[in-house]
């Protein structure tokens, strides 16, 4: 067991290690340059991230990872969010936890990118949808909304009772990528009797972690854009005054600050529950509450920050828009707020304590 102090130290180290690639003070030039390109991220940076051990952070040590917890992973993805990092760490980490030992080395080194394909329709977090089937070493079906699929070498596909590993260039694979609002892409994977490798396993836990990590990423997004906006209010002048001196803008800012703080408290508490609670329902309810808050808060904060910037906020050249468009992609990813609220309600029956 780690003590609270050890944990605090390990979280600090993770955050510090992120600073090289994902600096909170970065100018977002690289992020802008990668938008609307294919595959939408940089494989050299990807290898660097893998060398830092980020992809294997949650993979156990005997499998070549670092065996750290959800709290560490969330600390990392929060930093990635603050820097709007497009490399698909959250998705790839979900896949990495599902791969068998012998498939891991190439993946953890960054040589090969494997992404998870689990979703079969919009507005769904049903991992057991069952529309994609595996039989006699072949898989048939359709998966949607695979993040950054244009950069994948292979996919871990969820099927009833387990998983199937499908190569990108195998016969019968049709991948159609659509550009997303943040300049990345989202793949629809049609599999027609494709040769695949069966993997024993359950995507459940890896999915929960991806929800948590996305919540933390959104926390980083909202925190950074809020900071950028406060700086703007302290410099921009109108009517001969700094606009941050106007009470209408101050009160808007205070309300956004409350959303950021609620999201932080909720995400941190939920990440802790993932590492410390033995009760599956408690863990999942916490995940759902965190994702609902993070999605809603990021939406409120990014929209509010555009408003606080005024006209310049509506230009593509100004940074707040990058954060808004990232939120438009990630707020619904791994389940939008309404879906997670419904799941929370089902998982956490109303208590009778009052």
């Amino acid at each position, binding site marked *: 067991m780690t003590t609270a102090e050890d944990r605090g130290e390990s979280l600090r180290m993770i955050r510090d290690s992120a600073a090289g690639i994902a600096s909170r003070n970065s100018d977002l030039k690289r992020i802008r340059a990668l938008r609307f390109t294919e595959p939408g991220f940089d494989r050299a940076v990807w290898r660097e991230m893998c060398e830092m051990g980020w992809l294997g952070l949650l993979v156990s040590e005997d499998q070549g990872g670092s065996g750290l917890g959800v709290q560490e992973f969330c600390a990392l993805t929060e930093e990635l969010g603050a820097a709007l990092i497009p490399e698909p760490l959250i998705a790839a980490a979900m896949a990495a936890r599902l791969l068998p030992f012998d498939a891991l080395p190439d993946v953890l080194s960054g040589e090969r990118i494997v992404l998870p394909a689990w979703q079969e329709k919009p507005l769904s977090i049903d991992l057991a949808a069952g529309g994609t089937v595996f039989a006699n070493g072949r898989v048939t079906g359709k998966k949607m909304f695979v993040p950054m699929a244009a950069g994948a070498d292979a996919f871990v596909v969820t099927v009833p009772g387990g998983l199937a590993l499908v190569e990108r260039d195998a016969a019968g694979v049709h991948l159609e990528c659509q550009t997303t609002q943040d300049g990345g892409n989202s793949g629809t994977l049609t599999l027609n009797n494709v040769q695949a490798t069966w993997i024993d396993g359950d995507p459940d836990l890896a999915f929960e972690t991806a929800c948590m990590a996305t919540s933390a990423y959104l926390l980083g997004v909202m925190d950074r854009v809020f900071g950028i906006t406060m700086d703007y*209010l302290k410099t921009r002048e109108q009517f001969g005054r700094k606009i941050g001196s106007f*009470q209408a803008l101050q009160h808007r800012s205070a309300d956004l*600050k*409350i959303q950021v*703080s*609620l999201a932080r*408290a909720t995400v*941190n508490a939920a990440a802790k529950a993932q590492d410390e609670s033995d009760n599956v329902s408690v863990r999942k309810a916490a995940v759902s509450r965190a994702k609902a808050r993070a999605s809603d808060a990021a939406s409120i904060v990014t929209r509010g920050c555009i408003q606080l910037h005024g006209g310049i906020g509506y230009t593509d050249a100004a940074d707040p828009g990058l954060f808004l468009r990232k939120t438009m992609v990630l707020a619904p990813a791994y389940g939008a707020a309404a879906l997670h609220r419904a799941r*929370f309600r089902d998982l956490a029956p109303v208590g009778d304590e*009052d």
Partner: protein
Amino acid sequence: MNELSDEDFRLIVREWVAANYPPEIRNPLKRLHWNECKSWYFKLAEKGWLCPGWPVEHGGMGLSPGKQLIMLDEFERHGCARTIDQGVLMVGPLLIAHGTAEQRAFFLPKVLTGEHVWCQGYSEPNAGSDLASLRTVAERDGDDYVINGQKIWTSMAMDANWIYVLARTDKKAKKQEGIGFFLVPMDTPGITVRPLTTLDLNEEFAETFFDNVRVPASALVGLPNKGWSMAKALLGFERIFVGSPKQSAYALARLRDLAEWIGVWDDLAFQAVFTQHREDVDDLTDLYEVYVEQVRGGEVPGPDVSMLKIYQTELYQRVTETMLDIAGDRSAMLEPMEGNRALNPAGLFLQSRPSTIYSGTNEIQRNILSKNVLELPS
């Protein structure tokens, strides 16, 4: 008590409260008057639990802030009424910090026995949010001070026999620097109390008039120009109380009772709204815990604690507004449904209204966040 583990301490408090709290005043609908809540005050006094924060040598429990929070948590959990606690929360700590030996020896025991019931003379008709602009004056006259002016929102002034008053001692000084802190018996000639009926038809507040009220110089606490800074410093970790999620959680439980009684509990649209409120309460609880941890660690929360007050009180109001929505025509009635106090949407709605106004309006709290946390320019 401080040596007990938090869990053991919590259990001891829980059991004692369950066995000793007067059942007839559980979860009261209104702020209770002295004759209604004094039984609880005396129970606490008898047990030695009336003043958890006071040092032991002054008759308190000398309880750590973390343990005090647990105690409050258990009281709220059981639905204990707030007593008339200004002597406990304000006068005692102020005298312990700034009073003379004589003042402490005279006043502290009388708070502990309930002989003195205190009310607060801070706000004035023209000094509400801008309290430092108060105009009640205390003029030195030989060995006495003579107080003239008007206070408002004096909670429980009709029940109190003593009042502590902020009054201007120096009209020429900067507005925060010419204010003194005075302790005045309510039966002093020249004091008139006029009750104010609140929006929920309770006589909780009063206007208190001071017309040549003469008090001895010993009524002054500390220096004549330090009243403001002393009063301000009194608010330490207690500021998190007003952001406690318990109030919203209580309203949420009543919303559930009401929805079940009306028959909309299983309605999907209602469930969506209810679940949103519930998550808001739970998320607020996570944020509240961040501050509880600070207090446990011996820190005094900074100005960012205003976030709790804003979010809690506005959530409390949202929940009661949902009660009105589902009750519809029924919420027009003056009395609770079927005489059941748990089915009282209009009552709870009205009760929630002042929460965004008292203890510093939510607009003032947003100003505090803007200036002291976000450091926006003025």
